[in-house]
C-alpha cells in the first residue's frame, strides 16, 4: 500500500515534469507499453542523431526483454549512459544531446543515453593559407578533430596537451600543446598562466585568446602567429614552440613568434631552398615596397621634386596635369578606394566578391584617371602597393601593413622624406620593444643571432637547419641526427 502511494506520487511528479517539457520547442515524447509498465522516451529533436535513435534505442526499448532500466542499460551499446532517480538535472543534459528513458516502477527510474547529433565540418583544404604543393588539410572548428590532426602527425608520447576552460559563460575548451623535452617549460608556463588569468565571459574564437594574452595589447602588430595548417603547427611544435587550440576556431595560435615568421609562408618548406629563399626575399621586398611606395610618392611630389630624375620628370608632371588635388588627397582617395574594395570583397560571397574586385579595379581606376581625379602613375603605384600587401601569408599581418600606410601618408605630406624616416623609426622602436610571450619580437635581426638567419630572410637547406631557433629557448637546441629521428618515428 505504502509502495503504491509512493509510485502514484512519482507518477504525478513525472507527468507534471513531462508536461512542462512538452511545452518546449522541439521536444518529442514516445510512449511504449512494455509488459505491464509504461516506458517513456523523450529528447529534443534538434540535438539527437535520428539514426542512432532508431537503431539503438527505439527498437531495443520495444523488442528486448527487460524488467528494469538497469537491464535495459546492458542492451544499449552506447557508453556513458547514466542512471538516476531524480529528474531535476535531466533537462540540461537533454540540450546537450542526451535522451531519457523513463520506466514506471523501475528503480532507478531514469536512464540517460547520449546520442548527440554529430554536425562537425569535415576536414577540408586550407583557404586562407592555401598552397599549391604540400598537404591539403586545414583545421576545423572542433577541437578534438584538430588535436587529432596533430596527434596523427606527432604520434609520440612526448606530446603534451593541457586542457583548460575559459569564458565564464561559453566555457570554451582550450588546449595548450607542446612537446615535452623540446619546448621551454617557461613558455608553456607563461601561456597556461595567461590563459588561466583570462577573465572573459565569452571566447568564441582563438583571436579572443590572442588579443587577451598578447604581450602588448596596444600594438597594431599581432604577436602570436595564427595558422589553419596542421602541418605548420606540427613543424613548429618540433621547433619547440607552443600551440594554443581553442574550441570553435579553425585557427590555432603559436608562440613565441617573430616578425620575420609572419612573412614566411609554409610553402617555403616544400620548394627547393633556392627557390624558397628567392620567393621569401621577394615577399619581404614586396612588403617594404607596399608600405613605402605611396608615402614616398607623396613625399617626393609634395616636397622633393629635386630627386626625380630628368627623364621621369615630364611623365610625372604631365600625368598630374589635370589633377586638381595635392598628391596627399589623391593618394588617400585611391588608398581608400582600395580599402573599400577589399572590405566589400570580404563581406560578399566569393563569386560576387570577385566581380566587385574586377569592376572596382578597372572601372573606378580608369574612370578616376579619365575624370582627372587621380594620375595614372599613382594608380600604378597604389595598385602595386596593394598587391604587395596581399603577398603576406598571414592575413592579420597584411591588415596591419595596410593600416600603417595611412599615418605614413600624412606624415609624408607634412615632413616629406624626413617625416617618413622619423615615423619608420617610431615603428622600429615599437618593434624593438615588442615581445612575444616575453621573447624579443625582432629576433634574429635584434638581438642579432646569425644562426637563426638560416630560416629568416632566406631558408637554407634542411641539412643546415640542424639547430632549433634560439629565440624560443628550446630545451634541446640540436635537432637530432636524421637516423635517430627515423628510429623514434618507427617505434
Amino acid at each position, binding site marked *: 500500500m505504502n509502495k503504491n502511494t509512493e509510485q502514484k506520487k512519482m507518477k504525478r511528479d513525472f507527468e507534471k515534469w513531462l508536461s512542462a517539457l512538452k511545452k518546449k520547442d522541439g521536444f518529442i515524447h514516445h510512449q511504449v507499453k512494455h509488459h505491464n509498465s509504461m516506458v517513456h522516451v523523450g529528447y529534443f529533436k534538434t540535438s539527437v542523431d535520428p539514426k542512432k535513435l532508431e537503431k539503438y534505442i527505439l527498437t531495443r526499448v520495444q523488442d528486448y526483454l527487460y524488467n528494469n532500466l538497469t537491464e535495459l542499460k546492458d542492451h544499449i551499446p552506447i557508453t556513458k549512459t547514466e542512471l538516476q532517480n531524480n529528474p531535476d538535472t535531466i533537462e540540461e543534459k537533454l540540450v546537450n544531446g542526451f535522451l531519457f528513458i523513463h520506466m514506471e516502477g523501475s528503480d532507478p527510474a531514469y536512464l540517460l543515453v547520449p546520442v548527440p547529433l554529430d554536425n562537425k565540418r569535415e576536414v577540408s583544404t586550407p583557404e586562407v593559407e592555401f598552397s599549391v604543393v604540400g598537404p591539403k588539410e586545414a583545421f576545423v572548428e572542433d577541437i578534438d578533430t584538430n588535436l587529432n590532426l596533430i596527434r596523427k602527425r606527432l604520434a609520440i608520447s612526448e606530446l603534451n596537451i593541457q586542457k583548460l576552460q575559459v569564458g565564464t559563460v561559453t566555457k570554451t575548451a582550450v588546449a595548450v600543446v607542446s612537446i615535452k623535452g623540446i619546448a621551454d617549460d617557461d613558455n608553456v608556463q607563461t601561456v597556461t598562466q595567461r590563459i588561466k588569468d583570462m577573465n572573459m565571459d565569452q571566447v568564441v574564437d582563438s583571436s579572443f585568446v590572442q588579443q587577451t594574452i598578447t604581450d602588448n595589447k596596444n600594438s597594431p602588430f599581432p604577436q602570436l602567429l595564427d595558422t589553419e595548417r596542421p602541418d605548420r603547427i606540427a613543424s613548429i611544435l618540433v621547433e619547440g614552440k607552443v600551440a594554443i587550440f581553442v574550441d570553435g576556431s579553425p585557427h590555432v595560435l603559436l608562440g613565441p613568434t617573430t616578425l620575420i615568421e609572419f612573412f614566411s609562408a609554409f610553402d617555403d618548406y616544400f620548394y627547393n631552398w633556392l627557390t624558397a629563399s628567392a620567393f621569401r626575399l621577394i615577399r619581404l621586398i614586396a612588403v617594404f615596397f607596399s608600405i613605402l611606395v605611396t608615402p614616398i610618392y607623396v613625399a617626393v611630389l609634395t616636397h622633393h621634386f629635386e*630627386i626625380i630624375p630628368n627623364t621621369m620628370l615630364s611623365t610625372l608632371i604631365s600625368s598630374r596635369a589635370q589633377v586638381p588635388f595635392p598628391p596627399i588627397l589623391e593618394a588617400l582617395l585611391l588608398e581608400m578606394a582600395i580599402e573599400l574594395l577589399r572590405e566589400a570583397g570580404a563581406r560578399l560571397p566569393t563569386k560576387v566578391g570577385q566581380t566587385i574586385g574586377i569592376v572596382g579595379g578597372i572601372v573606378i581606376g580608369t574612370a578616376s584617371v579619365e575624370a582627372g581625379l587621380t594620375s595614372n602613375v599613382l594608380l600604378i603605384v597604389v595598385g602595386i602597393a596593394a598587391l604587395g600587401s596581399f603577398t603576406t601569408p598571414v592575413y592579420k599581418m597584411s591588415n596591419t601593413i595596410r593600416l600603417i600606410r595611412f599615418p605614413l601618408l600624412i606624415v609624408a605630406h607634412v615632413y*616629406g*622624406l624626413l617625416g617618413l624616416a622619423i615615423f619608420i623609426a*617610431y615603428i622600429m622602436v615599437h618593434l624593438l620593444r615588442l615581445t612575444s610571450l616575453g621573447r624579443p619580437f625582432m629576433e634574429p635581426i635584434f638581438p642579432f643571432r646569425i644562426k637563426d638567419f638560416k630560416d629568416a630572410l632566406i631558408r637554407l637547406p634542411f641539412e643546415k637547419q640542424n639547430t632549433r631557433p634560439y629565440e624560443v629557448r628550446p630545451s634541446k637546441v640540436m635537432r637530432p641526427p636524421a637516423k635517430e629521428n627515423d628510429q623514434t618515428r618507427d617505434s
Partner: protein
Amino acid sequence: MIKLKDKVSAFFVFFLITSSQVGVGVLGFQRVIGQYAGHDAWIAVIIAGIAISVIIWIMYRLLSHHDIGDIVAIHRFTYGKWLGAIFTLLFTAYLMLMTAVVLRTYVEVIQVWMFPHIKIWALLLLILPLVYYTISSEFRTVVGVCFLGVVYPSLLLLTLFYPLKYATLTNIMPVMDHSVTELMQSSSLAVLEFIGFSALLVFYPYIRDAVKSQTYAHLGNGYSLLIYLMVSLVTYLYYNQTELREVIWPTLGLWKIIELPFFARFEYLGIATLFFAILPNLVLLVWASARTLDRTFNAGHKRMAILLLVILFVANIVLTDRMTIGVLNNVLGNIGLGFLFGYVPFLFVLNWIRRKGQKNGP
C-alpha cells in the same frame, strides 16, 4: 645590481661604440679637420682613431675594477660622496651638451637643405617623444636602436662610389705634405667626431662579460675610423683644397652629383636616412645622462629622462643661428679633448692611487 636578463652580450659593444661615434659629424667634418693638414687630413683621422683606442683601453682598465663599474661609482669611490656627485654632474652636463649639439646640427641641416620654413620646435615635438619612447624601455631597446643605427645607414657607404667618377688623384697628392704639428692639430679637431663613445663610462655595467668586450669596443672604434676615413678620402679626392674651403657640408656635396635612372640628387634621401644614425646618438646620450642622474640622486630614470628632454628642447629653440652652433661645436670639441685626454687619464691615475691606498691601509 643589474639583472643578468637586462644585460646585453659583449658583441653589441661594437654597435654601441660605432653608433655613438658616427652621426651628424659625417656631413661636415672634412672641411673642419682640413684646416691645418689640408689634403693630408685623412691621416689625422687615423691618428685620432688610434688615440681614441688608447683612451678606450684606459677606460676599460678604469671600469673593470669596480663591481658596478660606471662613472658614478668610480667618482664616488675616488672623490667621496659629495665631490663625486659634483664631478658626475659635470660629466652629465658634458653628455647633454653633446646631445644638444648633435641635435641642433642635424636640425640645421634640415633647415638649410630641406625645409627652410620649418618650425623647429614643432619638429622637435615629433623627434623627442621618440627618444623618450626608446629610453623609457629597457636598455635592450636602446641597444637595438644603436644596432639598426649602424646597420641601416651603412648602406650609405655605397653612395661613396659614385663621386669617385670625378675623383682626381692629384687632389690628395703628395701624401704627407704637412708637418707633424699640422697633422696633430688636425687630429685634435678630428677627435670631436669620436667623442660620443664617452657613454661607455655609463653603459659598461650593462654588458655581459664586460671585461671581454674590450675587443669589440676597439673593433667598433675601428669601424667608425674606417667610415670617417672612407668619407674623408673620397672627399679629398673629389674636391681640391681651395674648393673644399668654401663648402660647409662636403658630404652632401658629394651626394649632389649622384644621378641614377630612378633617382637623382641623393642628398635629400641621404639626410632622411641619416636620421637613423642620429637617433642612436640622441638615445644613447640621453639615456646615459638620465642614468647618471638617477644613480646619483635616486630620482627615477624616467623622470630624469623627461627633465633632460625638456632641457634639450629649450636648448634647441634658444640656439638659432649658425655662428652660435659653430662656436658650440668648437667649445664641445675642446671640452671633449680635455675630458678624454686630460681628465680620463687623470681619473685613472687618481683612482689607482686611491685603490692602492685602500689596499695597503687598514
